[in-house]
């Protein structure tokens, strides 16, 4: 058992551990946003560790190229999906649970929201009021 196998085994075990911990966290966390935190742990760290172990095992081949493509795609899409989910949940009225010591009034989450830009009403001639001025 050379060092490549040892490295691969360590990465595989660590990846399986992080995936399992993320799954337990996504089931047992109290809030939507903390659940997203736990789920994104499995999306990045667990996926990268397991895919890296597989890349080491496959060696230089076409399979490694496909694994690199999968890893890059997961790294691009997972933050986008998390952002879209968090923004949609905030827009629909979900608010994260804040700690008891904080002052929730000072935490204005409405400033963080990305809303649709509200266009001003068009006049009778179809020109917006700003352009008339």
């Amino acid at each position, binding site marked *: 058992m050379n060092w490549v196998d040892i490295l691969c085994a360590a990465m*595989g075990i660590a990846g399986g551990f992080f995936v399992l911990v993320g799954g337990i966290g996504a089931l047992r966390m109290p809030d*939507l946003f903390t659940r997203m935190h736990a789920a994104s742990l*499995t999306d990045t760290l667990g996926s990268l560790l397991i895919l890296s*172990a597989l890349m080491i095992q496959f060696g230089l081949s076409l399979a490694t190229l496909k694994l690199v493509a*999968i890893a890059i795609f997961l790294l691009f899409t997972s933050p986008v999906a998390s952002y879209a989910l968090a923004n949609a949940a905030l827009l629909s*009225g979900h608010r994260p649970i804040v700690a008891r010591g904080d002052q929730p009034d000072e935490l204005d989450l409405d400033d963080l929201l990305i809303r649709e830009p509200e266009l001003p009403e068009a006049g009778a001639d179809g020109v917006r009021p700003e352009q008339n001025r």
Partner: protein
Amino acid sequence: MIFLGAILAIAVTMSLALVRALLGPSVYDRVLAVNMFGTKTVLLLSCMAFVAGRSDYLDLALAYALINFIGVLAVLEFFRQRERATETPEGHIRHPKPATAHAHAHADTDPATDAASGASEAAGDSEPGA
């Protein structure tokens, strides 16, 4: 052998995500769990490609990653354009409109006419026999 353990961990995580998708109080919990389930499907297929010795499974994993991402964004866009989910954050189902008394009013219109129409139908049925 290592990847058999990884497959086991991924399968357990997929079942936990499925439990969260089934009992998640809001729609967004369900979307999160389904997204997680899809990502774990990609990982499971990659590990199975090594264990089974067939690198064809990696193509399936890539296709699953694409479909999962597009599906999650499509569901989120759908719920954003409806401007609200069907459930409040506390998990109560919000009814958009009070139920109209349409069918109810129709049901208790004049049982006499119903009986009369039934009688006429019975008469009409008995007519060819007579």
